[in-house]
């Protein structure tokens, strides 16, 4: 049995995600399941035909909306499962946080050093939590991801 070697990246506008095969081209249809950790939403997508060609290409396959999952993809941890003939089923968790990341960074763009310290502290805290989100995604820690996401969403 072979092992999947893939990369998943959320689009900046959270409307889609890119999935790319990093290893030998796979020629059999792949069943992709995506499930939100907190929203109890899930969907299935079959990668076949031209999608399979894109999946094996250097640019990867862009997948937009999937029936069963809200679109744009709400910030959350998502469980991905991939299966196909001759390969071990792959299960991995990915954190999507572009919606909150987008608004945090746009807010930060307007910061100037002569502005109120309270504003500076808020922006600093948001950036710190955003960085934590990335760490928790990279280390595959859903609990830390949810805690940091909740904190970030609650800051006014």
């Amino acid at each position, binding site marked *: 049995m072979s092992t999947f070697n893939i990369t998943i*990246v959320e*689009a*900046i*506008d959270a409307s889609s995600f*890119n999935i790319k095969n990093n290893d030998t081209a796979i020629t059999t249809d792949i069943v992709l399941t995506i499930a939100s950790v907190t929203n109890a939403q899930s969907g299935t997508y079959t990668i076949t035909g031209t999608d399979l060609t894109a999946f094996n290409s250097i*640019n990867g396959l862009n997948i937009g909306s999937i029936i069963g999952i809200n679109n744009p993809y709400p910030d959350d941890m998502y469980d991905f499962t991939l299966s196909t003939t001759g390969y071990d089923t792959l299960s991995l968790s990915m954190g999507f946080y*572009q919606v909150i*990341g*987008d608004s945090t*960074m*746009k807010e*930060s*763009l307007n*910061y*100037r*050093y*002569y502005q109120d*310290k309270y504003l*500076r502290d808020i*922006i*600093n805290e948001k*950036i710190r939590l*955003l*960085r934590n989100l*990335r760490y928790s995604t990279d280390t595959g820690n859903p609990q830390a991801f949810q805690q940091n996401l909740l904190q970030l969403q609650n800051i006014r």
Partner: protein
Amino acid sequence: MTALTLANVIYTSKVFILELSLKNYEKLQIGSKYTASRQEDILTAIDIYIDILEYYYYILDNNVTTQTALLENDINNIIELITQAISAFKDSYYV
């Protein structure tokens, strides 16, 4: 802007701030409380700007071409702001 170009800007800014802090550490916070506070504000602002650049770098590094969150123009403005902030920081020394 390529990811490599941006990486160079981030690296240069970080090194510059580090050297500025190390070489002139004894000068920091000499003078009025107001001056010290202003220096701290400027350094914090530069840190925030570098965070923005790193976030944008992460976008570029992932080869995602749809850039709705931050535009290249925004990033060029931030790079300009870093330059201005460094200049303001230097001007704030008490000599």
